[in-house]
C-alpha cells in the first residue's frame, strides 16, 4: 500500500491521497488482490460518472464513503481476474445467485440456465477489442452487490423473454393456435379529445410517487404489499395514498373537463364511459344489413 494514489478524473482527482488510502483500507481491497492505484482509478470513474464536474472534495469523499466499497472492490477484483476474489465471490454469492434466479424464473431448469448465463457474463467469456469483457465491471457499488446481481438477472430474464417471443418459429405459432387468430378489429372510435387532454394534464401534474403507485396497482396489478415494499412504507400507507390519488384524479379531471367547456353532466358521462365500450361500434352492430331479414314472413317464401 503506497498511500499516495489519487483518483483520476475531473472531480475525484482533487481528493487527497490520504482520503483515498482511507477508503482503500476500509474496502479491504488488498485482501482480494486489488492495488490501491487500481482502486483509486475505479473510484475516480464512478465519481466522475455520478458527480457534477464542479463537486467539492467533501462531496466526492462523502459520495465515495456511501458506496459499498468492500463489495465494489470484490467485484472489480473479480473482473480483473484475481483468483482469491473469485473464491470469495463464489462462496458468498453462488447460492444467492441461484436462489434469485429461481425466484425470478420460478422453474428450476430455466433458473439454472439463467444463472449460468449470467455467470458466463460475469466471468467474461466474450472479448471486445482483444479484451475480455466482464459484466462485474459495470457494478458501481451504489447498492449491494447482491441487489445488483438480482437486478441484472431480472433484466436478463426480461430480455430473454422478449427475444424468445420475437423469435417464435412458425411451427410454434401454429402449435399455439396463432393461425386461428381473429381478424383485425375495426378501427376504434377515439375518446373525446378533451377527455384525453384533461387526463394527460392531471396525470402530468401528479407526483412521481403517486403515478408510480397508480401504475403499479392499476396497470401492473401488483398487490399493495409489494408496492409498499418497493417504496419502503407500510401497506396501509399505500392503501390510503391509492384511495386519495384515485379521488383526486377524478376530481381534477372533472375540473379540467369543466374548464374545457363541458357541462357537469357531460363530464360525468365522459368519465363514466369505458373507453373500451366507446371503441365498440354499437350502432353499426345493431343496424341490420340490407337484404338480411331478421324474421321470415309468415306465409311467404
Amino acid at each position, binding site marked *: 500500500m503506497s498511500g499516495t494514489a489519487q483518483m483520476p478524473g475531473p472531480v475525484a482527482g482533487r481528493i487527497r491521497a490520504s482520503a483515498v488510502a482511507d477508503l482503500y483500507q476500509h474496502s479491504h481491497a488488498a485482501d482480494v488482490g486489488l492495488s490501491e492505484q487500481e482502486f483509486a482509478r475505479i473510484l475516480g470513474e464512478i465519481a466522475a460518472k455520478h458527480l457534477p464536474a464542479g463537486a467539492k472534495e467533501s462531496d466526492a469523499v462523502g459520495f465515495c464513503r456511501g458506496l459499498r466499497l468492500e463489495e465494489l472492490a470484490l467485484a472489480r477484483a473479480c473482473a480483473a481476474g484475481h483468483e482469491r476474489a473469485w473464491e470469495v465471490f463464489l462462496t458468498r454469492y453462488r447460492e444467492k445467485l441461484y436462489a434469485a434466479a429461481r425466484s425470478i424464473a420460478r422453474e428450476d431448469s430455466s433458473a439454472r440456465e439463467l444463472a449460468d448465463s449470467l455467470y458466463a457474463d460475469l466471468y467474461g467469456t466474450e472479448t471486445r477489442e482483444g479484451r475480455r469483457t466482464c459484466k462485474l465491471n459495470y457494478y458501481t457499488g451504489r447498492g449491494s452487490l447482491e441487489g445488483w446481481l438480482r437486478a441484472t438477472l431480472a433484466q436478463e430474464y426480461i430480455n430473454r423473454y422478449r427475444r424468445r417471443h420475437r423469435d417464435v418459429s412458425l411451427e410454434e405459432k401454429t402449435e399455439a393456435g396463432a393461425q386461428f387468430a381473429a381478424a383485425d378489429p375495426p378501427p376504434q372510435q377515439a375518446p373525446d379529445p378533451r377527455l384525453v387532454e384533461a387526463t394527460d394534464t392531471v396525470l402530468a401534474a401528479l407526483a412521481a410517487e403517486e403515478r408510480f403507485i397508480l401504475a403499479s396497482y392499476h396497470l401492473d396489478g401488483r398487490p399493495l404489499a409489494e408496492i409498499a415494499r418497493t417504496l419502503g412504507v407500510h401497506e396501509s400507507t399505500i392503501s390510503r395514498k391509492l384511495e386519495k390519488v384515485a379521488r383526486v384524479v*377524478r376530481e381534477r379531471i372533472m375540473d379540467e373537463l369543466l374548464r374545457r367547456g363541458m357541462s357537469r353532466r357531460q363530464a360525468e358521462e365522459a368519465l363514466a364511459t369505458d373507453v373500451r365500450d366507446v371503441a365498440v361500434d354499437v350502432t353499426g352492430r345493431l343496424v341490420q344489413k340490407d337484404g338480411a331479414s331478421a324474421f321470415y314472413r309468415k306465409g311467404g317464401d
Partner: protein
Amino acid sequence: MAEVPKIVSERLRSQAAAGEHPDANLLSAFSERALSEQERAQVLDHLSRCAECREVVALSALPQVDEERLVAAGRGSAGASRSWWRSPIVHWSALTAAALVVLIAVGERMRLRQENTASAPAIARYEPAEKQIASAPATVPAPPQQKQSQRLAETARPPRRAQAFNAPKPIGAVSGGKLASGDRVATGSATGASAGIGGHNLPPPAVLPMKPHANADAASTTTDGPAFESANEQAQAKAAAPAPSARAKQSVGVSAAAAAPALQTEGAPLSQGRSASFTTRAFLGPRWSVSDSGALQHSFDGGRSWKEVAVAEGVSFRAVAVVVVSDVWAGGSGGALFHSADGGEHWARVRVQLNDRTPSGDIVRIEFADAQNGVVTTSTGETWRTPDAGLTWRWQ
C-alpha cells in the same frame, strides 16, 4: 380499493418514459433506498412511466415478496382488501399478549427454580419406596408446596434427565458400607410422591441435603447420575455439607449436570439461568463440550456419557459452537480454529488472519449467527469476524 376511470389507465399505459433506462446499479440502489433524494425522485419518475423497469424492480425484489403474495393469494384477497386481523389494534393487542405471556413464563420459571433449589434433595424421593434405604431423621423439612413444585419441576425437566438424575445405585452398593468418594449424597425417606410411585403410604417426607459438586465440570463428566448414600453416611455428609442456602444453590448445579457441556459450548461460566434454558435443548442433537483438559468431546445420549473427538494434536480447545447439527466450529490455544461440515467426522483447520495479522491469544468464544457469519473472541479480547464461513476475516 377505489377504481380510477378507465381513461386514466389508458393514458397511464400510453405514457412513454423519457430518457435512458436506469441501469441495474440505480435500480438496485433504489430498491435498497440507497439513492439520494434527487436521484430517487428521478428514478421514481422513470419507473412511474416505464413498465419494463417496474418489472425489473419487482422481479429483483427479495423473495419475501413472493411469500407475501402467496399469503395474500391464500387469503383470496390478493392483498387488495384489508382483513380485520390486519388492523393495528389487533397487531398491538397480539404483541402485548405475547409480551405478557413471556413475562409470566419467565416469572414462573424463576419461581420454579427457587422452589426447585429449595427442594432439590427431595428428588431422591422418586426412588420407589421399597428401594429406599433405611429411613433417616428429617434434617430439612419439606416446604408446604414441595409436592407441587416437585411436580412442576419434573414437568419442566426432560424425562430422560430426570431419570438419569434419579437413577439409584443398586441397594447393595450403597447399603453395605461406604460409597466411592465421587458419589452424590441424597438419602431420605419416602414422601407422598414416592408413595404414589411405589404404591406405599409412607410417613411424611424427610430429605437429606445433597453433597455439593466440586465444580460443574465434574458434574458434566458424571455418566451414571447421582447415587444415594446410606443412612450411616448421613452424619458425614452433614458435616461436609455447606449451609442450607449454599447446598440448595449447588444442588441446581447437579440438576444442570447434563447442561454443563452446553454451557461450556458457549464459553461462558455455568449459571442457573442458562441451565434451565438448556433443558429444552437437551434432545435436539448431539452435544458438544470441551473438557477440563482441553479435549473436544461430544455426547449422543443427552450428556450422560461423553466421548473425546480427535481433531488435532497439540491443540487445547477452549470453545466449541454448533451452527446446525452438521456444522461445528471449535477453537482453542494459539488461535487455532477448526471447522467440521459433517458433524465432527472430518475437521479442517481454518486460518484466522488478515494480511499478516493473526489472533494474539487463545480462542475462547465462538458465535455463529448462521452458516456464514461468525465471530470468534480471543483470550486477549480480540474479536474476529467472518462473513463467509471463515474464508475471510476482519479484526476488531
